[in-house]
Protein backbone atom coordinates (compact mmCIF):
# COMPACT_ATOMS: atom_id res chain seq x y z
CA UNK A 1 0.00 0.00 0.00
CA UNK A 2 1.48 3.32 -1.00
CA UNK A 3 0.44 6.91 -1.24
CA UNK A 4 -2.79 7.41 -3.20
CA UNK A 5 -3.06 10.93 -4.60
CA UNK A 6 -6.69 10.56 -5.63
CA UNK A 7 -7.72 9.56 -2.13
CA UNK A 8 -5.59 12.34 -0.63
CA UNK A 9 -7.22 15.02 -2.77
CA UNK A 10 -10.63 13.61 -2.01
CA UNK A 11 -10.25 13.79 1.77
CA UNK A 12 -8.18 16.98 1.98
CA UNK A 13 -11.16 19.38 2.02
CA UNK A 14 -12.86 17.25 4.64
CA UNK A 15 -9.91 17.50 7.02
CA UNK A 16 -9.07 21.10 6.20
CA UNK A 17 -12.65 22.16 6.89
CA UNK A 18 -11.88 21.80 10.60
CA UNK A 19 -9.51 24.75 10.34
CA UNK A 20 -11.93 27.34 11.73
CA UNK A 21 -12.74 25.14 14.67
CA UNK A 22 -9.05 24.67 15.39
CA UNK A 23 -8.32 28.38 15.08
CA UNK A 24 -11.31 29.22 17.27
CA UNK A 25 -10.22 26.83 19.99
CA UNK A 26 -6.63 28.06 19.79
CA UNK A 27 -7.61 31.71 20.12
CA UNK A 28 -10.12 30.98 22.88
CA UNK A 29 -7.59 29.02 24.89
CA UNK A 30 -4.96 31.69 24.24
CA UNK A 31 -7.16 34.45 25.62
CA UNK A 32 -7.93 32.36 28.71
CA UNK A 33 -4.25 31.66 29.29
CA UNK A 34 -3.17 35.27 28.71
CA UNK A 35 -5.66 36.64 31.24
CA UNK A 36 -5.42 33.84 33.78
CA UNK A 37 -1.63 33.87 33.49
CA UNK A 38 -1.57 37.51 34.56
CA UNK A 39 -3.96 36.78 37.43
CA UNK A 40 -1.71 33.91 38.59
CA UNK A 41 1.34 36.16 38.39
CA UNK A 42 -0.30 38.73 40.63
CA UNK A 43 -1.67 36.11 43.03
CA UNK A 44 1.78 34.61 43.37
CA UNK A 45 3.27 37.98 44.26
CA UNK A 46 0.48 38.70 46.74
CA UNK A 47 1.58 39.90 50.16
CA UNK A 48 -1.09 37.64 51.64
CA UNK A 49 1.19 34.62 52.01
CA UNK A 50 -1.37 31.76 51.99
CA UNK A 51 -2.66 32.97 48.61
CA UNK A 52 0.87 33.23 47.26
CA UNK A 53 1.79 29.70 48.38
CA UNK A 54 -1.50 28.26 47.16
CA UNK A 55 -0.94 29.84 43.75
CA UNK A 56 2.61 28.52 43.65
CA UNK A 57 1.34 25.02 44.45
CA UNK A 58 -1.38 25.29 41.82
CA UNK A 59 1.10 26.40 39.15
CA UNK A 60 3.53 23.58 39.94
CA UNK A 61 0.76 20.98 40.04
CA UNK A 62 -0.87 22.02 36.78
CA UNK A 63 2.46 22.41 35.00
CA UNK A 64 3.69 18.94 35.86
CA UNK A 65 0.60 16.83 35.26
CA UNK A 66 -0.49 15.81 31.75
CA UNK A 67 -2.99 18.09 29.98
CA UNK A 68 -4.73 14.98 28.68
CA UNK A 69 -5.62 13.85 32.21
CA UNK A 70 -6.62 17.39 33.12
CA UNK A 71 -8.91 17.37 30.11
CA UNK A 72 -10.57 14.15 31.29
CA UNK A 73 -10.86 15.64 34.76
CA UNK A 74 -12.59 18.77 33.49
CA UNK A 75 -14.84 16.95 31.03
CA UNK A 76 -15.72 13.76 32.92
CA UNK A 77 -15.13 14.44 36.62
CA UNK A 78 -16.28 18.02 37.12
CA UNK A 79 -19.93 17.21 36.24
CA UNK A 80 -19.93 15.08 39.43
CA UNK A 81 -19.71 18.27 41.46
CA UNK A 82 -22.22 20.10 39.30
CA UNK A 83 -19.92 21.81 36.77
CA UNK A 84 -21.01 20.57 33.36
CA UNK A 85 -19.20 21.91 30.32
CA UNK A 86 -19.67 20.98 26.70
CA UNK A 87 -16.63 19.51 24.97
CA UNK A 88 -15.57 22.75 23.32
CA UNK A 89 -15.70 24.75 26.55
CA UNK A 90 -13.93 21.94 28.41
CA UNK A 91 -11.19 21.85 25.78
CA UNK A 92 -10.69 25.61 25.68
CA UNK A 93 -10.68 25.86 29.46
CA UNK A 94 -8.28 22.97 30.01
CA UNK A 95 -5.75 24.14 27.46
CA UNK A 96 -6.18 27.72 28.65
CA UNK A 97 -5.59 26.88 32.29
CA UNK A 98 -2.68 24.56 31.52
CA UNK A 99 -0.80 27.16 29.50
CA UNK A 100 -1.73 30.02 31.84
CA UNK A 101 0.77 28.49 34.27
CA UNK A 102 3.46 28.72 31.59
CA UNK A 103 2.51 32.27 30.70
CA UNK A 104 2.58 33.32 34.34
CA UNK A 105 6.23 32.24 34.37
CA UNK A 106 6.85 34.32 31.27
CA UNK A 107 5.21 37.37 32.83
CA UNK A 108 7.18 36.77 36.00
CA UNK A 109 10.48 36.70 34.14
CA UNK A 110 9.51 39.96 32.46
CA UNK A 111 8.60 41.61 35.75
CA UNK A 112 11.75 40.33 37.44
CA UNK A 113 13.87 41.91 34.73
CA UNK A 114 12.54 45.42 35.46
CA UNK A 115 15.31 47.17 37.41
CA UNK A 116 14.63 47.72 41.10
CA UNK A 117 15.21 51.44 40.68
CA UNK A 118 11.96 51.66 38.72
CA UNK A 119 9.99 50.45 41.74
CA UNK A 120 11.81 52.84 44.01
CA UNK A 121 11.31 55.74 41.64
CA UNK A 122 7.60 54.98 41.38
CA UNK A 123 7.38 54.98 45.14
CA UNK A 124 9.38 58.22 45.40
CA UNK A 125 6.94 59.84 42.98
CA UNK A 126 4.10 58.76 45.26
CA UNK A 127 2.46 56.58 42.60
CA UNK A 128 -0.38 54.39 43.76
CA UNK A 129 -0.03 50.63 43.44
CA UNK A 130 -2.21 50.57 40.31
CA UNK A 131 -0.27 53.41 38.75
CA UNK A 132 3.02 51.72 39.55
CA UNK A 133 1.92 48.49 37.89
CA UNK A 134 0.16 49.83 34.86
CA UNK A 135 2.19 52.94 34.10
CA UNK A 136 5.68 51.92 35.15
CA UNK A 137 6.26 48.19 35.61
CA UNK A 138 4.08 46.38 33.06
CA UNK A 139 4.90 48.69 30.12
CA UNK A 140 8.54 47.75 30.67
CA UNK A 141 8.01 44.13 31.65
CA UNK A 142 5.75 42.97 28.83
CA UNK A 143 7.41 44.14 25.54
CA UNK A 144 10.65 42.16 26.01
CA UNK A 145 8.68 38.95 26.55
CA UNK A 146 6.23 39.46 23.67
CA UNK A 147 8.04 36.96 21.40
CA UNK A 148 7.85 34.36 24.17
CA UNK A 149 4.17 35.12 24.66
CA UNK A 150 3.61 34.82 20.92
CA UNK A 151 5.39 31.50 20.93
CA UNK A 152 2.74 30.07 23.22
CA UNK A 153 0.09 30.76 20.59
CA UNK A 154 1.94 28.29 18.40
CA UNK A 155 2.37 25.83 21.24
CA UNK A 156 -1.37 25.97 21.95
CA UNK A 157 -2.15 25.49 18.28
CA UNK A 158 -0.07 22.33 18.27
CA UNK A 159 -1.79 21.06 21.40
CA UNK A 160 -5.29 21.15 19.91
CA UNK A 161 -5.18 17.54 18.57
CA UNK A 162 -5.37 16.51 22.21
CA UNK A 163 -9.04 17.45 22.19
CA UNK A 164 -9.83 14.50 19.95
CA UNK A 165 -9.73 12.46 23.16
CA UNK A 166 -13.11 13.96 24.14
CA UNK A 167 -14.48 13.91 20.61
CA UNK A 168 -13.83 17.45 19.41
CA UNK A 169 -13.76 17.21 15.62
CA UNK A 170 -10.42 18.89 14.98
CA UNK A 171 -7.91 17.83 12.28
CA UNK A 172 -6.76 14.60 13.88
CA UNK A 173 -10.22 13.45 14.90
CA UNK A 174 -11.44 14.01 11.32
CA UNK A 175 -8.44 12.14 9.96
CA UNK A 176 -8.95 9.30 12.38
CA UNK A 177 -12.60 8.93 11.39
CA UNK A 178 -11.72 8.95 7.68
CA UNK A 179 -8.93 6.46 8.32
CA UNK A 180 -11.19 4.12 10.24
CA UNK A 181 -13.92 4.12 7.63
CA UNK A 182 -11.56 3.58 4.68
CA UNK A 183 -8.89 1.46 6.39
CA UNK A 184 -6.32 3.91 5.08
CA UNK A 185 -4.51 5.95 7.69
CA UNK A 186 -1.44 7.02 5.73
CA UNK A 187 -3.01 9.83 3.71
CA UNK A 188 -5.32 11.38 6.35
CA UNK A 189 -2.71 11.50 9.12
CA UNK A 190 0.01 12.74 6.77
CA UNK A 191 -2.32 15.52 5.63
CA UNK A 192 -2.87 16.53 9.25
CA UNK A 193 0.90 16.69 9.79
CA UNK A 194 1.34 18.78 6.64
CA UNK A 195 -1.45 21.14 7.70
CA UNK A 196 0.28 21.72 11.02
CA UNK A 197 3.60 22.36 9.32
CA UNK A 198 2.01 24.63 6.77
CA UNK A 199 0.33 26.73 9.43
CA UNK A 200 2.95 26.70 12.17
CA UNK A 201 6.23 27.02 10.30
CA UNK A 202 5.57 30.46 8.73
CA UNK A 203 4.34 31.72 12.09
CA UNK A 204 7.45 30.37 13.79
CA UNK A 205 9.65 32.21 11.30
CA UNK A 206 7.64 35.38 11.90
CA UNK A 207 8.03 35.13 15.67
CA UNK A 208 11.73 34.50 15.26
CA UNK A 209 12.02 37.72 13.26
CA UNK A 210 10.00 39.56 15.88
CA UNK A 211 12.32 38.25 18.56
CA UNK A 212 15.43 39.45 16.78
CA UNK A 213 13.85 42.84 16.22
CA UNK A 214 12.72 43.27 19.77
CA UNK A 215 16.19 42.32 20.99
CA UNK A 216 17.60 45.01 18.78
CA UNK A 217 15.17 47.64 19.99
CA UNK A 218 15.60 46.90 23.64
CA UNK A 219 19.31 46.40 23.38
CA UNK A 220 19.90 49.95 22.23
CA UNK A 221 17.52 51.46 24.73
CA UNK A 222 19.28 49.88 27.66
CA UNK A 223 22.69 51.29 26.75
Amino acid sequence: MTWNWEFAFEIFPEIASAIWLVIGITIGAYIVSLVLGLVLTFARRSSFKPLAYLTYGFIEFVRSTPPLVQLFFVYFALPAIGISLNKYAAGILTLGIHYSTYLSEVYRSGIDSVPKGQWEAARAMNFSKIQTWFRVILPQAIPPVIPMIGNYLLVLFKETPLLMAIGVGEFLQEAQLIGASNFRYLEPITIVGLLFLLLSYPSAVLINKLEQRSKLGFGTRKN
Partner: protein
Amino acid sequence: MEAYINILPRLLPGAVITVQVLLASAALAFVVAFVAGLGRVSKYSIVRKITAVYVELFRGTSLLVQLFWIYFALPAFGIQFSPFLAGVVALGLNYGAYASEVVRGAILAVPSGQTEASIALNMSNWQRMRLIILPQAFRIMLPGFGNISIELLKGTSLVSLITLTDLTYKGLIIQNTNLSYTMPVFVMLLVVYFIIALPLIILAKKLEKNASRGVAKA
Protein backbone atom coordinates in the same frame (compact mmCIF):
# COMPACT_ATOMS: atom_id res chain seq x y z
CA MET B 1 -12.28 8.31 50.72
CA GLU B 2 -12.61 4.56 50.44
CA ALA B 3 -12.91 4.85 46.70
CA TYR B 4 -9.60 6.70 46.53
CA ILE B 5 -7.80 3.97 48.48
CA ASN B 6 -9.50 1.32 46.39
CA ILE B 7 -8.32 2.82 43.16
CA LEU B 8 -4.66 3.34 43.99
CA PRO B 9 -3.45 -0.31 43.81
CA ARG B 10 -5.37 -0.80 40.58
CA LEU B 11 -3.58 2.15 39.01
CA LEU B 12 -0.10 0.97 39.97
CA PRO B 13 0.47 -1.50 37.09
CA GLY B 14 -0.29 1.41 34.76
CA ALA B 15 2.16 3.61 36.62
CA VAL B 16 4.87 1.01 36.04
CA ILE B 17 4.22 1.14 32.28
CA THR B 18 4.26 4.94 32.35
CA VAL B 19 7.63 4.95 34.10
CA GLN B 20 8.98 2.38 31.61
CA VAL B 21 7.85 4.50 28.67
CA LEU B 22 9.34 7.55 30.37
CA LEU B 23 12.75 5.95 30.92
CA ALA B 24 12.98 4.34 27.48
CA SER B 25 11.93 7.49 25.63
CA ALA B 26 14.18 9.68 27.79
CA ALA B 27 17.14 7.49 26.84
CA LEU B 28 16.23 7.73 23.15
CA ALA B 29 15.61 11.48 23.37
CA PHE B 30 18.99 11.97 25.04
CA VAL B 31 20.83 10.17 22.25
CA VAL B 32 18.80 11.89 19.52
CA ALA B 33 19.40 15.28 21.17
CA PHE B 34 23.17 14.88 21.00
CA VAL B 35 23.22 13.51 17.47
CA ALA B 36 20.91 16.25 16.18
CA GLY B 37 22.44 18.97 18.37
CA LEU B 38 25.95 18.19 17.13
CA GLY B 39 24.57 17.92 13.59
CA ARG B 40 23.22 21.45 13.85
CA VAL B 41 26.69 22.83 14.52
CA SER B 42 28.48 20.55 12.05
CA LYS B 43 30.93 22.13 9.62
CA TYR B 44 29.24 20.32 6.71
CA SER B 45 26.27 22.32 5.50
CA ILE B 46 24.47 19.20 4.28
CA VAL B 47 24.51 17.71 7.79
CA ARG B 48 23.32 21.02 9.23
CA LYS B 49 20.46 21.15 6.74
CA ILE B 50 19.30 17.59 7.28
CA THR B 51 19.24 17.94 11.06
CA ALA B 52 17.52 21.33 10.79
CA VAL B 53 14.77 19.76 8.67
CA TYR B 54 14.37 16.98 11.20
CA VAL B 55 14.13 19.39 14.12
CA GLU B 56 11.68 21.71 12.37
CA LEU B 57 9.57 18.77 11.23
CA PHE B 58 9.16 17.45 14.75
CA ARG B 59 8.80 20.82 16.42
CA GLY B 60 6.36 22.10 13.82
CA THR B 61 3.78 19.32 14.16
CA SER B 62 2.20 18.01 17.30
CA LEU B 63 3.35 15.04 19.27
CA LEU B 64 -0.03 13.36 19.06
CA VAL B 65 -0.02 13.62 15.26
CA GLN B 66 3.48 12.12 15.14
CA LEU B 67 2.41 9.32 17.47
CA PHE B 68 -0.60 8.52 15.30
CA TRP B 69 1.49 8.70 12.17
CA ILE B 70 4.02 6.22 13.53
CA TYR B 71 1.35 3.90 14.88
CA PHE B 72 -1.32 4.08 12.16
CA ALA B 73 0.38 5.34 8.99
CA LEU B 74 3.77 3.61 9.08
CA PRO B 75 2.22 0.14 8.70
CA ALA B 76 1.36 1.25 5.14
CA PHE B 77 5.10 0.97 4.47
CA GLY B 78 5.26 -2.40 6.18
CA ILE B 79 6.64 -1.09 9.46
CA GLN B 80 4.38 -2.15 12.30
CA PHE B 81 5.36 -1.04 15.81
CA SER B 82 3.84 -2.31 19.01
CA PRO B 83 2.03 0.44 20.97
CA PHE B 84 4.92 0.54 23.44
CA LEU B 85 7.57 0.90 20.77
CA ALA B 86 5.52 3.41 18.79
CA GLY B 87 5.13 5.50 21.95
CA VAL B 88 8.82 5.37 22.78
CA VAL B 89 9.88 6.22 19.22
CA ALA B 90 7.43 9.13 18.90
CA LEU B 91 8.27 10.57 22.32
CA GLY B 92 12.01 10.05 21.83
CA LEU B 93 12.08 11.71 18.40
CA ASN B 94 9.79 14.58 19.42
CA TYR B 95 11.48 15.53 22.68
CA GLY B 96 14.86 14.68 21.17
CA ALA B 97 14.18 17.47 18.65
CA TYR B 98 13.39 19.91 21.45
CA ALA B 99 16.38 18.78 23.50
CA SER B 100 18.68 19.12 20.48
CA GLU B 101 17.98 22.85 20.60
CA VAL B 102 19.19 22.80 24.20
CA VAL B 103 22.36 20.99 23.11
CA ARG B 104 22.92 23.38 20.22
CA GLY B 105 22.34 26.44 22.39
CA ALA B 106 24.74 25.16 25.04
CA ILE B 107 27.50 24.40 22.52
CA LEU B 108 27.14 27.88 21.02
CA ALA B 109 27.19 29.39 24.52
CA VAL B 110 30.72 28.14 25.20
CA PRO B 111 32.95 31.20 24.68
CA SER B 112 34.69 31.20 21.30
CA GLY B 113 38.04 31.78 23.02
CA GLN B 114 37.87 28.13 24.09
CA THR B 115 37.63 27.02 20.48
CA GLU B 116 40.46 29.32 19.45
CA ALA B 117 42.65 28.12 22.30
CA SER B 118 42.13 24.48 21.38
CA ILE B 119 42.95 25.23 17.74
CA ALA B 120 46.10 26.99 18.94
CA LEU B 121 46.99 23.83 20.87
CA ASN B 122 46.69 21.87 17.63
CA MET B 123 43.78 19.73 18.81
CA SER B 124 41.75 17.78 16.28
CA ASN B 125 38.09 18.67 15.80
CA TRP B 126 36.99 15.62 17.70
CA GLN B 127 39.42 16.31 20.58
CA ARG B 128 38.21 19.88 20.78
CA MET B 129 34.57 18.83 20.98
CA ARG B 130 35.16 15.99 23.44
CA LEU B 131 37.74 17.56 25.76
CA ILE B 132 36.99 21.28 25.64
CA ILE B 133 33.54 22.18 24.33
CA LEU B 134 31.23 19.38 25.53
CA PRO B 135 32.37 19.27 29.17
CA GLN B 136 31.63 22.98 29.47
CA ALA B 137 28.46 22.84 27.38
CA PHE B 138 27.09 19.88 29.33
CA ARG B 139 26.52 21.80 32.52
CA ILE B 140 24.74 24.54 30.59
CA MET B 141 22.43 21.88 29.12
CA LEU B 142 21.42 20.29 32.42
CA PRO B 143 18.65 22.69 33.49
CA GLY B 144 17.11 22.43 30.01
CA PHE B 145 17.18 18.63 30.20
CA GLY B 146 15.50 18.79 33.61
CA ASN B 147 12.59 20.77 32.22
CA ILE B 148 12.26 18.58 29.14
CA SER B 149 12.07 15.46 31.31
CA ILE B 150 8.94 16.87 32.98
CA GLU B 151 7.44 17.64 29.57
CA LEU B 152 8.31 14.11 28.51
CA LEU B 153 6.47 12.63 31.49
CA LYS B 154 3.39 14.65 30.55
CA GLY B 155 3.74 13.48 26.97
CA THR B 156 3.69 9.82 27.99
CA SER B 157 -0.02 10.11 28.84
CA LEU B 158 -0.72 10.35 25.09
CA VAL B 159 0.25 6.71 24.55
CA SER B 160 -3.07 5.80 26.19
CA LEU B 161 -4.70 6.99 22.96
CA ILE B 162 -2.93 4.23 21.00
CA THR B 163 -4.22 1.67 23.53
CA LEU B 164 -1.07 1.17 25.57
CA THR B 165 -2.23 0.38 29.11
CA ASP B 166 -0.34 3.15 30.85
CA LEU B 167 -1.50 5.08 33.90
CA THR B 168 -4.08 7.15 32.01
CA TYR B 169 -5.49 4.12 30.20
CA LYS B 170 -5.79 2.17 33.44
CA GLY B 171 -7.68 5.10 34.93
CA LEU B 172 -10.05 5.18 31.96
CA ILE B 173 -10.73 1.45 32.32
CA ILE B 174 -11.58 1.83 36.00
CA GLN B 175 -13.78 4.81 35.25
CA ASN B 176 -15.58 2.91 32.49
CA THR B 177 -16.38 -0.08 34.68
CA ASN B 178 -17.61 2.01 37.59
CA LEU B 179 -18.94 5.43 36.70
CA SER B 180 -19.37 6.46 40.33
CA TYR B 181 -15.57 6.36 40.53
CA THR B 182 -15.22 9.11 37.92
CA MET B 183 -14.13 11.85 40.31
CA PRO B 184 -11.79 9.73 42.47
CA VAL B 185 -10.15 8.14 39.42
CA PHE B 186 -9.15 11.39 37.76
CA VAL B 187 -8.09 13.00 41.02
CA MET B 188 -5.89 9.99 41.78
CA LEU B 189 -4.49 10.02 38.24
CA LEU B 190 -3.41 13.63 38.62
CA VAL B 191 -1.95 12.91 42.06
CA VAL B 192 0.01 9.87 40.86
CA TYR B 193 1.37 11.79 37.86
CA PHE B 194 2.41 14.57 40.20
CA ILE B 195 4.16 12.09 42.50
CA ILE B 196 6.09 10.66 39.54
CA ALA B 197 6.94 14.20 38.46
CA LEU B 198 8.05 15.31 41.92
CA PRO B 199 11.61 13.93 41.76
CA LEU B 200 11.97 15.46 38.29
CA ILE B 201 10.74 18.85 39.52
CA ILE B 202 13.15 18.83 42.45
CA LEU B 203 15.98 17.73 40.15
CA ALA B 204 15.18 20.45 37.62
CA LYS B 205 15.09 23.12 40.34
CA LYS B 206 18.39 21.90 41.72
CA LEU B 207 20.06 21.83 38.31
CA GLU B 208 18.86 25.34 37.64
CA LYS B 209 20.31 26.56 40.89
CA ASN B 210 23.61 24.75 40.36
CA ALA B 211 23.97 25.87 36.76
CA SER B 212 25.42 29.23 37.67
CA ARG B 213 27.52 28.02 40.59
CA GLY B 214 31.24 27.55 40.43
CA VAL B 215 31.57 28.52 36.78
CA ALA B 216 34.46 30.86 36.14
CA LYS B 217 33.12 33.92 34.36
CA ALA B 218 35.10 34.62 31.23
